[in-house]
């Protein structure tokens, strides 16, 4: 199926901005938000792998049903997964087409890659992970008061 692919921020992706070396960041940037009817057409359900293909490349995402997304469009969180299928043309403005990528989608069995794996394919060599102190983010000792949106 052909789709208009658009990308943008999500709060879950934003919360992981300073944890890009961690698994959760890749989980959030590896999602694709699809209208439930389109997901039905793709013969997929929540959590299935969806391969998005564009003229630039292809990448596997995790299907996330979302009624807010209009049929015929797919929404991606900002990040390495979305950028892996984004071309670099800026039409003389400096800004790529983050909101306007034409591509196709189909269900596959392959699991999404991590951000680090994508960057390794692009030529990167991930840094060794900093040692995480016990009780840090998400641990018992952490209390984020007034952190609601």
């Amino acid at each position, binding site marked *: 199926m052909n789709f208009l692919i658009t990308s943008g921020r999500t709060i879950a992706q*934003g919360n992981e901005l300073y944890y*890009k070396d961690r698994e959760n960041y890749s989980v959030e940037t590896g999602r694709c938000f699809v209208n439930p009817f389109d997901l039905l057409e793709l013969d997929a359900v929540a959590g299935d792998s969806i391969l998005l293909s564009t003229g630039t490349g292809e990448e596997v995402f995790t299907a996330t049903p979302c009624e807010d997304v209009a049929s015929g469009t797919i929404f991606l969180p900002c990040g390495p997964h979305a950028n892996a299928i984004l071309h670099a043309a800026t*039409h003389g403005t400096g800004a790529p*087409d983050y909101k306007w990528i034409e591509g196709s989608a189909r269900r596959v069995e392959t699991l999404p890659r991590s951000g680090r794996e994508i960057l390794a394919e692009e030529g990167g*060599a991930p840094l060794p992970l900093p040692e995480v102190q016990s009780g840090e983010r998400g641990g018992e000792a952490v209390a*984020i008061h*007034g952190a*609601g949106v």
Partner: protein
Amino acid sequence: MTSVDNACSLGAAKFLSQSRLRKPLVRDGGSWSETSYEEAIRSAADILAEAERPLLFGWSGTSAEAQCIGIHIAEAIGGVIDNCSSICHGPSLLGIQEAGHPGCTLGTVKNRADLVIYWGSNPIESHPRHLSRYTTFVNGRYREEGHHDRTLVVVDIRKTDTAKIADEFIQIRPGGDYAAFAALRAVLLGHAAILPATVAGIPRERLIWLADLCRNAQFGSLFTGIGLTQSPGRYKNVRSAIQFVDELNRCTKFTLTPMRGHWNVNGTNQTFSYLTGYPYGVDFSRGIPCYNPGETTAVDVLSRGEVDACLVIGADPGAHLPRRCNEHLAKIPTIVIDPFVSLTSSFATLHIPVACVGIDCEGTGYRMDSVPIRLRKVLDLGLPTDEEVLSALLERILERGQAGSAVIDERGAATTTRAPVIM
């Protein structure tokens, strides 16, 4: 640090991050090893000074003071310096250069606005405190009942979380922004009858209703997101929005504010404009600042493969630039100056960790309404600041340049805009 009070979820996550490095790392092939700051800065200076077409990219996540030093480095090495606005609200700036900026401070919005419109922006997720501090849910001097005194309208291609709490949501077809603003202007100018039944998927009656709502507002504020700047039309969308606001200002008060992203991306436009005359994408290779978006902007110089060395600071192109740019970054010497491990670290030849502005060092940032804010230091991790690292880098580069000039003078060679490298 175990807890954070009074921050939004994005801010709390930044304070609590454990993805901080404490010592510079240098890459040798596929392995990394620690090095000293002195050695890292010397190496970074050598890489940048020896490059033919260096790019200095990012700057939105660091202080205005550091940005100014960065511009001096770019001038000293004849490089291209660009900031994150080139990939987000750069087109907004192009629109503003064409049509002007009918802006105001967020305090004015808080105190006066009875109509708030978010167009192509989803602040609930991107700017979590925007509505509660400045626009919708806050009580103002002339809006004492807060959101009861205001109308919130969202225009977007999808029903975002912000759209769900809006008084009115208008769903627009992707890429239809220019046409919608043009139609709204037509309504204001008395030409509603010529509109087709729908424009960009919006029924004509809905557009007439929105135009009337804006015209009848006492003080309206339009906030434009990257939904306008990264879709077809780009800066023309923003120009059309400004022209709509200009028309409204013939009969009421109305303002437009781009929803800037990084905490100091607006600061980059302030400092770049002040020191070079241009807000982003500045090329010093000819000895004078040149600006041509699409040519001198980061995505373009990287995707064309022009750049032979890159300094990344206060941004993460590894996470936010198209793959073709990242593939080029992986091929060239890339220096990352960042408090956190970023995806760009994967492409780095050198990663120099620094203090984080607003956490472990001070600095000035510009809010999206261009009000400068002084950020305070709340703890000390003993790391050097961006300013200190960049100052040392500039000093080293200038020393090399002076040494190079002396050699030229002795030999009586022709002058050059680029200082030769003395090993």
